[in-house]
């Protein structure tokens, strides 16, 4: 394994990734940047690319970025581990989780 330089970085904020962008579907239109009430995102310096998540820990999970996104499949909401709801199939008893 090639030796990579190890940088000294601070811990990431928690949660760090309230959404996951799919660059295959995201056109970089930045509508999510505009609708987000608290500026979680900034536009990507490279035009046409998904925005950068700059203030993830300020997200209040209002979901408007995902709901108002005009490109289906571009944004997937990524609930933090402690906020992933469960359900149970009434007949089989099988447990599901988001």
């Amino acid at each position: 394994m090639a030796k990579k330089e190890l940088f000294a970085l601070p811990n990431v904020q928690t949660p760090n990734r309230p959404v996951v962008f799919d660059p295959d579907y995201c056109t970089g239109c930045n509508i999510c940047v505009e609708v987000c009430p608290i500026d979680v995102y900034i536009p990507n310096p490279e035009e046409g690319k998904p925005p950068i998540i700059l203030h993830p820990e300020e997200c209040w999970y209002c979901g408007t970025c995902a709901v108002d996104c005009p490109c289906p499949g571009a944004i997937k909401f990524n609930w933090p581990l402690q906020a992933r709801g469960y359900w149970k199939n009434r007949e089989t008893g099988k447990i599901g989780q988001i």
Partner: protein
Amino acid sequence: MTTWHDYLKEEGRPPSWPYPVRFEQEREVDTDILVIGGGIAGCWAAISAARLGMRVALVEKSDTVRSGSGGPGCDHWCNAPANPLSRVDPDGWARHMASRPYSNGIGIQIQCREDFDTLLEMEQMGGKIRDTEDEYVGVEGRDDKTKFMISPRYGTIHSYFPDPRMGEPNFNPPETRNNVVIRVWGSTFKPALKKECKRLGVQIFDRVMGTGLLTENGIQGARVIGATGFDTRTGEFLIFKSKATILSTAGAGSIWFMSMELGGYSNMHSRAISGDGTVMAFRAGAELTKMEAGGVVRIATGYKHKWYTGGGDASYENVPLVDANGKRLPYPIQGWVDAGAMVPAPGVEEKIREGILKGEYALPFYADFPSMPKVEQDATWKLMLGEEATTKVIIKTFNEAGFNTRKDMLQSYKFIEGQSLPQWREAGYGGGLLVDWNLKTSLDGLYAAGTQMFAPEDHSYAAATGRYAGRKAVAYARGIGESKLARDQIETIKNRVYAPVRRSGGIEWKELHAGIARVMQYYASEFRSESLFKMGMDALEKIETESVPMLYALDPHKLMRTLEDLSILEYAKIIIQASRARKASSLPLGFQRLDYPDVDPPEWNKFMTIKLENDKVKIGDLPPEFWGDMKQQYETHNRDYEGVYRGK
């Protein structure tokens, strides 16, 4: 790449600030009506003023398209007793609503008289308020003629608690229901409101935070003639000159919460709710009331599971709650069967707890969607849950993950997620600006609407009072001439606003926030007394003199957060000072004084008021129902009211 760390790894450097930086640069805006806060109340205020032909500027800290608590959506248009299906008299219903202790009879009367007209105007603008596609034919409460969907909430009386008659034979039959609450598709509302603002020529200043009110000759208590703001992306300083100003920002949502990271999971209060408007008005000399009020936050604390991924504390809205074996729990569900009750009768929760320990109820509990008729499942899942504010994305996530209301039961966390601590309190929905029958504050030229007023209510209340404040501000502004802004007042605000960006190191906003929250948890939460208040004030003043001068902010966004926490610091001080003035305990105010343990003694049944005069705190009081005869006062003040908008 999506995260900042990914970017850093790939590019070898952090991204540059993406917006032009204009710290301290000034821009002046001259308008007739200035609205600060572009949520539901603010948008309605702007629209109603612009429809009367006035020049309107709307200032919003986020983007008007989705900002505010009602921005993502709203599933209930509450208290619309003037709707054609209602069985109650609007004035009688208003009196009923306002009979709750320390409520706002003025706002409630306006809501009950005008929020159905407001709803019809919402429809004119493109908001969806009826089942026009016949998606929910057969759902209980749907009126096939008007296609309105009446909500199960408030089946007979207004209460979140169960009706004492619950369980009696023929309880809450369809022919006696009051029909005052309408289910709506509120996620369509905010974009439609912004569109209408634009169509009417309202000048919208998105991403601008209000930072101070400007008064005649810069004097505290004088007429309000404008305001200042700053652009939260560029740092530019804006100076607004106006004939009348309407404040429609929110209360302060996170005063007692230390962690802003976990606070982010709250779906009731975003980080941005920081009392900016209340503090601006207080500094300008406006009178506030009910500032000592506050209770434990039971939902949406950020420490609990996000509401509609299953908190029984908010109920499942018409979905039966069962245990792990399918046994029905005696917990109200805000449905027809319990006439909209959301909170169990005293003792019920304890009984369920005992049942868990004895093995009578098996954990975890579930919302039994499959037991409901299909059309009711759909109306609950897609409409009531799907449209309720931040829940649309929750429904989307569950659907994508395979959850199906036909087969699956949604887990409830009510009894397994832990209880709220007495220190987790809220101040967002109690205190606020004192208003008169014109929704004018105690300052000339300054009006208030929605959550900005004391004892505010819900979405339709914000809409109706915003619409009302807009037209009252216009009536006032018509008689106002030119005014001259006081430069020294602008300079004072500017120095306060930009102080943190003139430093490059010190304390950041998050630590300031945590420090304030800690003081409030220790000295102004469950237990209150004069000696604790004194320690709390000393501690907040210590923060103010020692830590605030060390605040720094590297970019306009961080400056916004810093200024929000400075608002919260001032708000916290107001809470403590208002609390000192009430020398009695009170149940409805969530106010327990160790040194005055008498609960709600009659002589303290009054509103306490607080304001600044020559920078000194002045306490006053007002009798309960100081607003007088609600029907008569409303009619006296609204002889010219024209009903639903008929313009183009």
